[in-house]
């Protein structure tokens, strides 16, 4: 640490060159932050504990097939099940198909199982009491300038009403918030009451899209899931039950091998980065050969010269990288609120601890790789040759 000033001075000896290199490093780590945020959202590498005690039960054949509502009582009767609720995809369109947001019909106790959805007590009561009531997330309400009391017409894509009409009108009775930034994407959802849907729709009466089960003890997850699936075994509506996280990860995985794509891009970016900063460092050391020789004359050991050069390259990468990652954090936060959620998560996770840790390791690693050759060169300098410019 005592040589910090020396390293710092060496780094900014050619300030323009260092600045340009820093900006390149910044761009690389900005990209790393953004892509890793997407990758971790898709691979379900979420460290959020929300939902760890919830199971999702869907039709084994396909997510798009519905299940009979009669299953509810039998699921609730299973030992280890604290509470169960159900929901149905509504798939409403507001004004234009391009204005996509998820809309679901939910049971009355939906909010009991999802305590992360924060809704004031009287709005909650209103959602319970008003048949045509609907609640939306704060981000969605803001986007379309909705306020409590508004009437919101949605075009149904799945469920025409009994009279054949496709227009459903809902009364907005509440706006919920998510205080966990990991879940901010959920503020783009629209919820209506399943009872209203089932009463007014033409087809599929008495069916639900999926069940959500809250476990009494999350350690029993596997046993309870098996017991639930056994209920409908060999019937014409077999189910598949898994943890909410596993469900999300499997769903996201179907979009494609995001990990592979991100990996390939990052490979190209870091290969270029190593070459680019390696070149800068080589130049920096080449120019400073006489200076390094003087340091050695003053009594700096070979190892400290090696350390000085390595320290310089690591510092260069870490400086640019930290700014780049911080910038990525800002960009991700700005983008996240405007994207609709994909399943229970947003397609981008905030740049959190895990990404920072990976990023910092990567910075130090790249710094060491980049500094290695020039540093060894500096270490091996013979004072006499270097001073005489040979």
């Amino acid at each position, binding site marked *: 640490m005592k040589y910090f000033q020396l390293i710092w001075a060496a780094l900014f000896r050619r300030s323009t060159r260092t600045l340009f290199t820093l900006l390149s490093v910044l761009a690389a780590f900005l990209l790393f932050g953004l892509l890793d945020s997407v990758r971790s959202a898709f691979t379900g590498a979420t460290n959020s504990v929300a939902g760890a005690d919830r199971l999702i039960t869907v039709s084994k054949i396909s997510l798009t*097939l519905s299940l009979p509502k009669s299953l509810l009582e039998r699921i609730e009767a299973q030992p280890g099940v604290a509470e169960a609720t159900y929901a149905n995809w509504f798939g409403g369109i507001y004004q234009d198909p391009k204005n996509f947001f998820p809309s679901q019909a939910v049971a009355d106790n939906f909010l009991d199982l999802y305590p992360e959805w924060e809704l004031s007590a009287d709005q909650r009561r209103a959602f319970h009491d008003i048949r045509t009531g609907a609640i939306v997330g704060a981000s969605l309400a803001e986007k379309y300038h909705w306020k409590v009391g508004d009437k919101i017409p949605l075009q149904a894509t799945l469920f025409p009403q009994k009279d054949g009409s496709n227009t459903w009108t809902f009364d907005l009775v509440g706006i919920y918030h998510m205080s966990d930034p990991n879940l901010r994407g959920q503020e783009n959802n629209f919820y209506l009451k399943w009872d209203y849907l089932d009463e007014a729709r033409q087809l599929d009466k008495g069916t639900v899209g999926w069940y959500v089960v809250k476990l009494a003890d999350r350690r029993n997850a596997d046993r309870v899931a098996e017991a639930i699936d056994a209920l409908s075994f060999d019937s*014409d509506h077999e189910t598949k039950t898994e943890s909410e996280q596993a469900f999300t990860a499997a769903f996201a995985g179907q979009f494609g091998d995001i990990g592979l794509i991100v990996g390939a891009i990052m490979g190209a*970016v870091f290969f270029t980065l190593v070459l680019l900063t390696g070149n800068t460092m080589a130049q920096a050391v080449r120019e400073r050969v006489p200076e390094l020789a003087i340091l050695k004359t003053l009594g700096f050991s070979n190892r400290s010269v090696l350390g000085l050069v390595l320290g310089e390259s690591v510092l260069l990468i870490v400086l640019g990288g930290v700014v780049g990652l911080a910038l990525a954090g800002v960009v991700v936060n700005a983008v996240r609120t405007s994207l609709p959620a994909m399943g229970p998560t947003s397609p981008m996770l905030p740049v959190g601890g895990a990404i920072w840790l990976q990023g910092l390791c990567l910075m130090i690693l790249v710094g060491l790789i980049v500094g290695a050759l020039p540093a060894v060169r500096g270490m091996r300098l013979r004072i006499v040759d270097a001073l005489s410019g040979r």
Partner: protein
Amino acid sequence: MNTLRILRTGAATAVAIIVPMVLLLAAPWWALAASLAALVAWMALTRAGRQALSIARVGIATIGQRLGSSSVVVVGIAGVVGVLVALLAMAAGFEATLAQTGTDDMAIVLRAGSQTETNSIVDHDSAQIVSQAAQVLKNLHGQPIASPELVVVASLPKRSTGLDANVELRGVGDGAWDLHRNIKIIDGRKFSPGLRELMAGKSAHEQFKGLDVGSSLKLNGQLWNVVGIFDSADSHNSEVWGDTPVVGATYRRGSNTNSVVVQLTDAGAFDAFKAALASDPRLKVDVMTTHDYYNRQSETMSREIRIVGTTIAVIMAIGAVFGALNTMYAAVSARAREIATLRAIGFRGGPVIVSVLLETMLLALLGGALGATLTWAIFDNYTASTLGMNFSQVVFSFRVSPLLLWSGLKWALAIGFIGGVFPAMRAARMPVMAGLREL
């Protein structure tokens, strides 16, 4: 006062960079060819041009001595162009696969408001009314060429990961073989109507386990046999086909279907067909050509891939620009004495600028060509799959078209231009005396 000047210089520089770059990226090939011709003519015919050429020659000849730093420009730009072209090729491939699926003389009929086949329900009577419309082409036996279709989703393990993913199971009617005349059966035979037999599309067969001819699989508790593999060269390749009534029975759909696809007498008959269905009080349906239907499905996805791809490329390009700037500043300062000498014996500033720019853009072009070639070699026809509109996997191939390669090269030139223009100006503005004393 001082800040004002800095602001003004900054703004002027920004305009000086952005305007040529936008022009370069938007320029058609003939405009670039014309400017290249003008440059060659200038070099051959004018004194300043010949000066620029001779300085550039020295610069290019000495690239070998600066191999390490010159390769930064080449590799940096190759990376940008490679990633950009690959992602755009993905969008283009997805779009093309779906666009090929539809034609203008085929129409798809869905329940009003339903947008996609999975959401739609058309009952048996409506399907009959639709296929009886006057604009529907009849086959040799006088039957209308129409196919009531059912779309359901089955979960099968993928060959690559072993994990379950959704494959689209499409029930098709008798008319399907007349509708899709381009379909080739590459293994086995057609399924027989009324039996639990399946045909797998070529891509579905490649992506999923258990779809070989002769194998059987359990769908909704019933055993089905795979009897054939077909190649339709479009997005139907990602599907598995069976007989509509049998699929309907297995999935408890009764006599309802999701859609009706019909062959129109010709593309011009579409408007009349649409009007006929709209005016029929017994029907509540939406009609579109299959071309429109499949194009709309790819619209959102390919737009998103394009936005993401361009954003990534822009960030990478910013990194590459600074790399190029470093390299070219170093190159100019290494040649400071030489350039000052040239200036001293009467060479003007203009040729110096042109020569440095020429060198950078040549390196950039090399990088662009390298990136584009690599992407083409690796990713042209590379197969990938994603979740389509019907909640099932759509398989598509990346498509690296000459147009994409060309736009990659234009990006390379733009990056080279920015990376070269500032070092070039410094070289031209350097005081001759200072330059001569350099080193």
